[in-house]
């Protein structure tokens, strides 16, 4: 009984990897082109932006919140950097500005949620709508193109024969892994997400942890915005919209509990790879974009069901 339960819990916590392998096998059987180095390279490259956004989202979900503002933060911060570049600002200065704008908006989210006790879902929705509006107003809906090569290198370049993007994903993964597992802040994140009152009585500065978590979330969204604009070489009015809700699905499928306080960085990465494999697979198989939309919806559905089943398995 005890053993069975432990096995079941382990299985449920690692189900993302099983799903990933299954998906790869199924898609590969339907079209063997899937295993070509080009396609596999494509997958890790495409996984980068979603991956960094999902880490951003995971910081919020760990606290039991959902950050809807990520798309807004990502487009707004990328745009502010690009406008600087267009006006002659050197790229090495513009890039940190993008990160800084992202982090500043994240910290603002954090302050409003921690200090004013604003409901995260609605507060971040307001920020998202405001920023997307600002983004459209600033660009008048027109695309920003002609980015300098030094900027685009981060999205399109290679180091040796390896594309830059997946390297950045790996780097961010390692950093987030260290933060969650090896810093007092990371361990506090688990405590605050699991039971904020108990964390407070244990001497953890709950407000500070919340603000920091949203700060990281915003910073990562800024990085994602930078990488996506460098990858596509432009910022258009539909910038990043395909990542809007997928980041929530990736984090939750990867095992971050919607109720907070539980999850691993590896799991989130697994969720990201699974979703990317499905996206790329659907493209290769030539599935109509109408179905792709529906399948995305179903994936979120699966994510939330998995979350519920995990919770139930732990409590029984």
């Amino acid at each position: 009984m005890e053993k069975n339960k432990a096995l079941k819990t382990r299985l449920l916590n690692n189900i993302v990897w099983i799903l990933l392998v299954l998906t790869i096998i199924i898609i590969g059987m339907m079209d063997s082109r899937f295993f070509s180095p080009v396609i596999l390279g494509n997958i890790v490259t495409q996984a980068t932006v979603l991956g960094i956004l999902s880490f951003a989202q995971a910081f919020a979900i760990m606290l039991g919140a959902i950050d809807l503002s990520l798309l807004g933060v990502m487009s707004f911060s990328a745009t502010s950097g690009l406008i600087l570049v267009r006006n002659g600002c050197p790229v090495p200065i513009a890039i940190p500005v993008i990160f800084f704008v992202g982090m500043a908006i994240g910290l603002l989210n954090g302050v409003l949620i921690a200090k004013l006790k604003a409901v995260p879902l609605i507060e971040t929705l307001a920020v998202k709508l405001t920023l997307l509006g600002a983004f459209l107003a600033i660009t008048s809906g027109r695309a920003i193109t002609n980015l300098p090569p030094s900027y685009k290198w981060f999205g399109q370049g290679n180091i040796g024969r390896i594309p830059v993007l997946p390297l950045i994903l790996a780097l961010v993964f390692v950093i987030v892994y260290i933060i969650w597992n090896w810093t007092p802040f990371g361990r506090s994140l688990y405590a605050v997400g699991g039971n904020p009152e108990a964390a407070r009585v244990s001497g953890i500065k709950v407000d500070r942890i919340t603000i920091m978590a949203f700060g990281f979330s915003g910073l990562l969204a800024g990085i994602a915005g930078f990488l996506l604009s460098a990858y596509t070489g432009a910022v258009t009015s539909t910038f990043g919209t395909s990542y809007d809700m997928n980041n929530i699905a990736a984090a939750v499928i990867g095992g971050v509990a919607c109720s907070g306080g539980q999850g691993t960085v590896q799991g989130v990465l697994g969720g990201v790879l699974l979703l990317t494999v499905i996206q790329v697979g659907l493209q290769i198989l030539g599935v109509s974009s109408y179905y792709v939309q529906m399948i995305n919806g179903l994936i979120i559905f699966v994510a939330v069901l998995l979350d519920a089943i995990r919770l139930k398995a732990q409590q029984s």
Partner: protein
Amino acid sequence: MNEILLQVENVSKNFGSTKALKDVSFSIAKGTIHSLLGRNGAGKSTVVNIIAGIYKQNSGNILFENEDITKFSVYERQEMGIKIVPQHASVVPHLTVAENIFMGIWPRNGAGFIDWQKLRREAALELDRYGLHVDAKATVKSLNGVDQRKVNIIRAMHGGAKLIILDEPTTALSSDERQELFVFVNELKAKGTAFIFISHYLQEVVELSDDVTVIRDGMAFSGRGKDGFSEKNLAHLITGEEVKLSQRTLRKDIEKSIVMECKKLNGHILKDVSLKLYSAEITGLVGFPSSGARELCRTIFGLENIYSGSVTINGKERFHVSVPDAMSNGIAYLSYDRHREGIIKLLSIADNISIPLLNAELKTSFGLFNKKKALDIAKHYFDLLNIKANSILDKLLNLSGGNQQKVVVAKTLASNPNILILDEPTIGIDIKSREEIIENTDRISTEKKTSVLYLTNDFDELIRIVDRILFFQDGKLMRDIRNDGLTHEDIVRIRDEVKRASMQKTTSYIV
């Protein structure tokens, strides 16, 4: 003997290879109170869940009014009159008393909508009938703990309860509230309702029960000895061994020094509280809810604000204290509410114990989390407090209540405090665990010269462990008495005297 209402006949239950219940039999007569006792994890909840229909037994029968109800679902059994009133009052706090009583069975008018007038009218009648004098239109959250529990019971009665299962109904109640609840339960019993009463407080079990069944290692034992029930006999049955009640090893020879001084402290509830705490001394706190006893604990620890006055810790006078402040000055606090403020259910034992130390001992010189040390500390307290689990990596939600409480104690001790504040450290846990916690408190106060503030409503426990007792009323410190052979009755008497004195004073101010 009254007519038999419920019979549990040779019930066994296995969870996988674990035998949770072995051949359990007992019966409950109409209009009686039958207590169910046992250590955490002994099988009490399994018995209750089988009676309610949540679990199905592997063998044996459950007869209710001479009918085998094994096949019936939870809902069918509720219809028949078996109702559970859970440990934490299951009421919707923002709704009115009337709505809570009629939830799910709202009276309807001709068009099928809720008939609000009828609902309020009938609720008022029900409240009157069962002698609960509150406004049916009041929200439940405005009621005190005992009244909320009564609303729960009335709700069960209104649904046609014949057998009500009260799962630890007194845990969060003061001793006076307990008495009030017992009067209420006894009145219902006189009218023919039967109760299964689950509690860890032997004294109230002896006082209230018509019959007692003790569950130990999945087996049932009758609590009735040659001469009825006695606390000693029941304690013996529950643990299967003689439980030695711990006693403070009061050492007069230890040199004491002042570790904390409060001067004219005003804060939430607190009024002009001045006192000194000494090393190696255990100070008991007594007072009704909102009297200032608990508030003192929480203010010193920084959970409540100081309005005026000061607290001197480590020779430094402070006019404001925050929790991290208090902790870095060697104060540790164990909250009375384990679920809300103590444990993090989804985290492991090791993680829970490490939380208060994250920004102190467990931070390496690079500012990183020292995982190895965290595991070492957790292992040390795991062994010291005899926590029952597979390993320190078990999640708290898989532990029994008593062991969860031990984790909270471990967490509090792990910071090696100079001042240890224990706010109901033994609430809702079995006798063996309770005695272990008391013993450890005694030991560290002697060995490490820790100053302890000890708050409990179990006065028998209090007089065994404390050196002196502070009595609180209306936010004021009223008495400071040495515990030289005080009895339970002495404590109650002094507490009530203090209350009367305070009330007279208040009246004279008005005049």
